[in-house]
């Protein structure tokens, strides 16, 4: 493989932040492989999103505003992506390791008879090859995996693992033609928004997460949300909190939930069992607040404050807000 193709995830006119990380990394990989860096933006609103991407060091941005991409589940998107991959030639396709990215990755890998490396946190670029590196087995090992016997490779990339750097953009925008002779059957009849502003928990630079110690749903909004807002982050939760129905499963971080890797992770009233650890152990700085000094999270957090979270968190929120006001 020689070229790199970035699959752009977006919603409601917003490109996911991880796209910029992928675009930046795509340039480096394409240069190492001696190929071009492409991006694919599909569905309504894509033309204006492509303009935002022009600041990034890509060679070609493939675009269609075709409404079918949103109307039918994934089949049109897969067809477009396949068409781009085939016209580009042997390539590494980069997708975010998100709900959408994983769904598309498995399908396009099969469609192109390509290898799939998942949850990648680094690429080793030596000898004209791209080797994917990422955690496996609940973070107990780090595996370096290459591609073989294949013209195409597919990699899902963990958000926040790579830096995004704007600049050097001179991309040519190419409008995609609709693949002919396709019929689509899986219909999105209706879309319902339940949580607003929580999109991209995986991408938040700061995550403030709550667990069993919160005792109910209210402290998530009254206690954690103000602290997350003050720090410019998002609210997450442990499995115990999601199972108890205090927050939707979309906020759950862990082995059976989302995997996050923010600069700062604050675990409030969370013991830090393996289930949770898997979802956040690669965070930059981990701070835990718990009334029990012997919780497992003390084994791998950077700071464990033992005390009453209901007193500590509001005080901390005030301090952070105060610091921001003086900044």
């Amino acid at each position, binding site marked *: 493989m020689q070229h790199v193709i970035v699959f752009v995830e977006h*919603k409601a006119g917003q490109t996911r932040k991880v796209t910029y990380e992928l675009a930046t990394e795509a340039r480096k990989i394409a240069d190492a492989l001696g190929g071009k860096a492409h991006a694919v933006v599909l569905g309504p609103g894509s033309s204006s999103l492509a303009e935002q991407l022009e600041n990034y060091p890509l060679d070609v941005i493939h675009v269609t505003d075709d409404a079918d991409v949103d109307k039918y*589940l*994934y089949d049109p998107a897969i067809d477009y992506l396949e068409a781009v991959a085939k016209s580009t030639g042997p390539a590494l396709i980069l997708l975010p390791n*998100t*709900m959408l990215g*994983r769904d598309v*990755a*498995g*399908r396009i890998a*099969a*469609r192109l008879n*390509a*290898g*799939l490396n*998942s949850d990648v946190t680094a690429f080793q670029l030596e000898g004209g090859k791209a080797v994917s590196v990422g955690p*496996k*087995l609940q*973070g*107990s*090992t*780090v595996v370096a995996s290459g591609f073989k*016997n*294949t013209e195409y490779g*597919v990699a*899902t990339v963990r958000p926040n693992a790579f830096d995004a750097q704007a600049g050097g953009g001179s991309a040519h925008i190419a409008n995609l033609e609709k693949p002919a002779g396709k019929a689509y*059957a*899986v*219909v*999105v*009849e209706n*879309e*319902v*928004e*339940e949580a607003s502003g929580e999109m991209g928990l995986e991408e938040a630079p700061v995550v403030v997460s709550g667990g069993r110690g919160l005792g109910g749903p209210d402290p998530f909004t009254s206690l954690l949300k103000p602290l997350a807002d003050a720090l410019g982050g998002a609210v997450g939760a442990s499995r115990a909190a999601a*199972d108890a129905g205090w927050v939707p499963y*979309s906020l759950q971080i862990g*082995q059976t939930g989302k995997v996050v890797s923010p600069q*700062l992770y604050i675990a409030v009233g969370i013991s830090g069992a*393996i*289930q949770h650890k898997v979802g956040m*152990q690669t965070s930059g*700085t981990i701070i835990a*607040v718990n009334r029990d*000094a012997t919780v497992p999270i003390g*084994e*791998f*957090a*950077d700071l*464990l*404050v*033992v*005390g*009453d979270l209901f*007193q*500590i968190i509001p*005080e*901390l929120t005030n*301090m*952070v807000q105060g*610091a921001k006001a003086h900044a």
Partner: protein
Amino acid sequence: MKIVVSVKLVPDTNAAKRIDPGTKRLVRTGLETVLNPFDEYAIEAALQLKEKLGGDTTVTIFTMAPESGKETVRKALAMGADDAVMLTDAGLEGSDVWATSYAMAQALEKTGFDLLIAGGLADDGNSGGVPGALTEYLGVPAITNVRKIEEAGDGKIKTQRETDSGYQVVSGPLPALITVTMAVGEPRYASLKGIMGAKKKTIATMSLPDLDLDRAVGTDGAKTEVLEISAPKVREKARVVEAADGATGAQAIFDFLRERKLV
């Protein structure tokens, strides 16, 4: 309706994993094989649908695993599934996502289904790529991340599909593949009756000669190869601060954030 649930057997998810620094392999001693936790939700969704539809609806467990996985498959049968099919062959060892999905698809085509249900992710590999690849090889419609099956039957399925910020109502024709999220409901425990009954249920096996493969699987067919395994960066134990009151605790955190230039 014939429901097939595709499950993966994984090393015990709650046990701490350790890599032998000499062999660079997972230390398997004392590690039990269990059902991938996500797949228990897929089984739960299938059993709920069977209860709702009644009649001649059946639930078949499908897995690609070594023969030794049979006892773990029995646990799925004890939850209430009717029978199981195992794809077992030494030639499958070393299969990656591509080779695994390709072999599974051939076996699933022989097994037959109206609805194929899978968990969203496997917790050892975490690729989430197999259901998507199966969709392609089987050539069936797919609905991913289903949190509720609203209707299924008469050649049609209607679901609520989880998104990052809510849900979508998505429908399509049967036969189809769906993946489910944890929101379908907590997996049931096997009853004593279920456990006893599972001993009599059929676990059919298939091996590679039973399939019509036209490409290599196993290590030879894989499109990826592990080049190196290393231990992750070990995090140190936390600095511990006992906070007598809220202000002390908050100050300790705030100072720490300052120290690390995070505020």
